């Protein structure tokens, strides 16, 4: 049957909705993906079994190699639907292993499809240590001249330690649906009260942590459509011009300057609307409704 296209402009397969495996297969060149530790040769987490929970054969993360636009890359994709993409012992070790292998195999880049709430509480200590190892491994990979790109657009966003890991990557690509932060709104609400952060006010959650806000603030380099193909094209373009620089004091000084200055500039603000107004956005209320292209144009017009 010849089905007409859906009327709204939700073009290709949604990145937000896709599973980690679907994201990997659609992001890389067709048929190019080779999985490391595929499910048929894996076993699920013994720690979850101890807690009487069914595990996943890939422990919630898919790793392997493939090509992107004909160039060799390695890839990590967290499965946000399995225990919130959270990092446990095996999950973390797969990521560390992939990054170590990247340093050895020298792919053109590592693509890190982040979709995670951070530490898997069922394996809290193992998860925290693994996150620390991932942080070091990402920095090692970059120091070896291999860029690591974080792609954020899944249901769980990038929170907790994975929020830190994402910001250690060479660059972050986000969709509007993506979220990037340290503590989740629920955690802040639980500890500091609903007045501090109403986690059910989802528009507010996105104004504080969402892709558009992070893009306007310069915390991600690209805002892409919620479309695996758009992620793919954007990363191909980015990769073609990317120069991975070794860690240098002057670069970190500049970053220090940028962060310090921005903390002063936006001091006391608690909502994206305030920040956008301070950035000179003419009609901040309109930001959440703007389409991606219009937002990119708007940002280019700001003197950031």
């Amino acid at each position, binding site marked *: 049957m010849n089905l007409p296209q859906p009327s709204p402009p939700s073009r290709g397969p949604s990145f937000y909705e896709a599973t980690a495996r679907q994201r990997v297969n659609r992001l890389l060149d067709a048929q190019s993906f080779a999985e490391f530790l595929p499910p048929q040769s894996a076993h699920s987490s013994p720690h979850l079994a101890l807690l009487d929970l069914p595990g996943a054969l890939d422990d919630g993360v898919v790793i392997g190699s493939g090509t992107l636009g004909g160039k060799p890359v390695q890839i990590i994709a967290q499965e946000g639907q399995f225990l919130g993409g959270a990092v446990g012992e095996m999950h973390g*070790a797969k990521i560390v292993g992939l990054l170590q292998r990247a340093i050895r195999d020298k792919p053109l880049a590592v693509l890190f499809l982040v979709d995670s709430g951070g530490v898997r509480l069922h394996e809290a200590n193992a998860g925290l*240590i693994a996150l620390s190892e991932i942080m070091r491994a990402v920095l090692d990979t970059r120091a070896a001249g291999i860029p690591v790109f974080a792609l954020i657009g899944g249901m769980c966003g990038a929170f907790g330690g994975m929020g830190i890991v994402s910001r250690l990557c060479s660059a972050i690509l986000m969709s509007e649906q993506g979220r990037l932060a*340290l503590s989740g709104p629920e955690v802040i609400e639980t500890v500091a009260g609903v007045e501090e952060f109403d986690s059910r006010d989802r528009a507010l959650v996105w104004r504080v942590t969402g892709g558009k806000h992070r893009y306007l603030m310069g915390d991600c380099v690209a805002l892409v459509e919620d479309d695996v193909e758009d992620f793919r094209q954007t990363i191909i373009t980015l990769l073609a011009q990317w120069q991975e620089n070794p860690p240098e004091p002057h670069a970190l000084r500049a970053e220090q300057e940028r962060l310090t200055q921005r*903390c002063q500039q936006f001091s006391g603000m608690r909502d994206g609307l305030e920040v956008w107004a301070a950035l000179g956005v003419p009609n901040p209320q309109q930001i959440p409704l703007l389409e991606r292209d219009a937002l990119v144009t708007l940002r280019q017009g700001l003197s950031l």
Partner: protein
Amino acid sequence: MTLFPLLDTLFPAGHDASVTRQVIAGTAHTAIGPVALLGTVDAAAISHDIALRLASQVLDLVDQHPGRPLIFLVDTQGQALARAQELLCLNGSLAHLARCVDLARRRGHVTLGLITGEAVSGGFLSFGLMADRVYALQSAQVRVMDLKAMARVTKIPHERLVALAASSPTFAPGAENYHRMGAIEALWDTPSSELLEQALAQLRASQPGGDNRLQQGRLRGGRQEAAAIVAAVLAA
């Protein structure tokens, strides 16, 4: 023990540490020469401000005293929990701090972490856990979340978690668990300048660049899966 008596015990040869808004800075004298002191007190909640001040000091050290060892004094309840902090990408400032520590390491500074009070999740990740080796005082509290809160979030009965914690180091709070899993090099019964000197000398001698925690976790039996998986990925 409060900070200054502790520092006096650890550095009998003297130090000039001071505390400004929960951030420790200073230099101490040791057998291997001057070392930089850096850290937080009173279970600081790591905010942009604290992270950036710590990072700035690391960058100054790299600039002004190439190669000088760094000692991190860890006492943090985790990250600051506030909407204003997240609005400005708190994870970004913590990542920046981690990158500064990483830069120092790559520039030949050995780094040693000592947990003097609490060491909790995000605050611990960005700083203490970035050190080459981490030690903890016996009284240190290391955790992601206490078991009661964990039971609530995971919907697993608290008694069950308590029972399992007796046999598994994987999830329950405790510095000993982190030692068994390879993240803490050793626990010190009491603060001791000898132990510190020893640790610094070992570090200096071995110049560890790499991350040894996987191997330690496997050797100590606290983390059996991880090392095997990393090896399997490399062999795949």
